[in-house]
């Protein structure tokens, strides 16, 4: 049988550049690899010798789409190392900033990156000719998220206002007025967006994943909580390395994370939702049900619906935090260096983001370790690909390729956090 090879230069509509290698021999999928070739930027190395207070600004530059996640994991890890706890209004402002990033990042993914797959368009601009209201609504939503980031962070990409111990400057109540109005409007668009995506056609596909997310005593998780799974993991961030390990594989410049002795796991909206459905307010649970979701969703193609649910939650949570806001006495609490190790895990839009730092007595970073969500999902993505390709093997190459790309986009992979230039090839023999 002749070998058939299809090539596209790169997977589009993901952050960063990646490729898939799919080998089909005599009607069987023999290999499915998501290839990640990020020219390594070597952050863990360049952090060595830097001051612990520089970590939030430096690590933000790992990813322009989720800089707040990096800043949050960095400040929490440093505060844990220095034995400082930040609570009250500063804690609330951090959560609020995170709401902004979730809204911005999820709206971008839903409307600009993922919806075109379901409706058969190359991009949101082409899609806007037929679905103008949805695209414009999504853009308004994204803009509201960015507005919140600008107010609290100074700018939407690489905010400048986050520091270990708090913020450089905090807003007074009056400064929230226009953002509050915008968020109220955005909330309305978020509900419309949920109804819109709920009407898409989803391939019937379920797998029995191990979901991993944070879980907090009372809130849907952003900054805090224990790392839990549906198969019994329940640990503090400091124990991350006991349960998880990173492996270096030949086809990737991203290290792949696995659960020791068990293998792949899934992080991100699906995992968060499944492990924290009971932490969503009843009206949002009702909206999720109306959109066809149960309390557990195992179909990664429906992650777009879960993202839309999380956007509504983030709008409501932001409005709640704004309504309750009283400025703190000081924008930050003082943090003095000491020789210590600090760990933190927070919920980036794409899933848990783990940081670990070893600090010397003078406050210099001796060692850094960062595990982004996409490295953790990489193995799950590859397993999904194998199942999808096996099931849909009869499709013509082009359709099979589209289906596989869509399966990759289910994860909203942030290849910049870990990845780069790859080729997508289907090899048939």
């Amino acid at each position, binding site marked *: 049988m002749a070998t058939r090879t299809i090539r596209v230069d*790169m*997977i*589009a*509509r993901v*952050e*960063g*550049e990646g490729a898939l290698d799919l080998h089909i021999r005599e009607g069987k999928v023999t290999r499915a690899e998501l290839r990640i070739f*990020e*020219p*390594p*930027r*070597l*952050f*863990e*190395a*360049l952090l*060595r010798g830097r*001051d612990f207070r*520089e970590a939030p*600004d*430096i690590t933000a*530059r*790992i*990813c*322009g*789409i989720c*800089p707040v996640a990096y800043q949050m994991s960095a400040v929490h890890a440093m505060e844990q190392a220095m034995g400082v706890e930040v609570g009250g209004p500063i804690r609330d402002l951090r959560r609020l900033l995170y709401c902004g990033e979730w809204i911005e990042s999820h709206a*971008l993914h839903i409307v*600009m990156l993922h919806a*075109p797959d379901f409706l058969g368009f*190359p*991009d*949101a*601009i*082409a899609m806007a000719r037929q679905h103008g209201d949805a*695209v*414009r609504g999504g*853009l*308004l939503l*994204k*803009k509201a998220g*960015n507005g919140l980031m600008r107010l609290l962070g*100074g*700018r*939407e*990409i*690489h905010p*400048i*206002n986050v520091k270990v111990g708090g913020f*450089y*400057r905090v807003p007074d109540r009056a400064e929230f007025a226009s953002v509050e109005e915008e968020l109220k409007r955005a909330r309305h668009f978020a509900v419309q967006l949920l109804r819109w995506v709920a009407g898409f056609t989803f391939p019937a596909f379920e797998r029995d994943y191990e979901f991993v997310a944070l879980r907090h005593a009372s809130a849907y998780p952003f900054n805090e909580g224990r790392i839990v799974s549906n198969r019994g993991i329940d640990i503090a961030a400091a124990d991350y390395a006991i349960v998880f390990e990173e492996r*270096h*594989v*030949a086809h990737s*410049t991203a*290290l792949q994370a696995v659960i020791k002795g068990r293998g792949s796991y899934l992080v991100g909206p699906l995992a968060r939702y499944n492990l924290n459905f009971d932490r969503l307010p009843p009206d949002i649970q009702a909206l999720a049900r109306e959109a066809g979701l149960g309390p557990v969703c195992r179909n990664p193609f429906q992650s777009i619906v879960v993202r839309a649910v999380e956007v509504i939650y983030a709008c409501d949570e932001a409005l709640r935090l704004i309504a309750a806001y009283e400025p703190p006495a000081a924008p930050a609490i003082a943090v003095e260096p000491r020789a210590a190790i600090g760990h933190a895990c927070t919920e980036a839009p794409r899933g848990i983001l783990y940081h670990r730092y070893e600090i010397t007595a003078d406050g210099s970073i001796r*060692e850094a370790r960062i595990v982004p969500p996409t490295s953790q999902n990489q193995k799950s993505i590859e397993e999904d690909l194998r199942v999808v390709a096996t099931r849909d093997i009869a499709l013509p190459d082009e359709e099979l390729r589209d289906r596989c*790309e869509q399966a990759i986009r289910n994860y909203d992979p942030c290849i*910049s956090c870990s990845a780069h*230039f790859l080729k997508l090839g289907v090899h048939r023999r």
Partner: protein
Amino acid sequence: MAPARRPRLAVWKFASCDGCQLSLLDCEDDILALAEVVEIASFPEASSAMSKGPYDISLVEGSVTTPHDAMRIKKVRRQSRHLVTIGACATAGGIQALRNFADVDDFIAAVYATSRYIKTLATSTPISAHVPVDYELHGCPIDKTQLIEVISAFLAGRKPAIPNQSVCIECKQRGTVCVMVARGTPCLGPVTHAGCGAICPSFRRGCYGCFGPMARPNTTALAREWRLLGASETDIQRVYRTFNAATEPFKTESEAHGD
């Protein structure tokens, strides 16, 4: 008369965080209108329709850190009538240029268990070290209104109206009190290229130079002032060695301080 052909735009990524190209998608009010006047011919982050060159304007994000990318940028140049670099990575080598001050093998060993699968160059270099560049936009990240201005200027065949002064001027323009004078906070504003709108001082924070050096900055005089405000030699070295560390003025000044 035949209808005018829309100019063709392409966006390219090298070693970067995607933040600068995201600035284009962050133009929520303008992106649909922009797509009417230009043909977005290749923008993989936003569209799976990637059409072949030549392109009228190429926006290039990211620095060159691999042998493969050193070749790829030459191909991009050949297909582009105008090539504009966007951001500190593409314009100055970015934060990843900190490897230029170290041994890259040590760097790789710090991240990976084995260097067997890793192909990388010893340095991170700006695009201009490899091909001629028509315009360089500063910032980590760039400012999106400046991006729209540069695209419009190239479309209209005029020079972009981007000021070349220091961040200090922007503080004056927005009426921010000087954080160095009023609060004794060390600030890189006097030597840093304008463009962000002086965000940090308006949050009572000193500028950390993410837009890189202005033309003819007096970095040494500023370092002296920093000493007077209590900064250590290491502090001074660190602040000149961030997102624009490989630019000549910041590199030279950083080498005069620290251990």
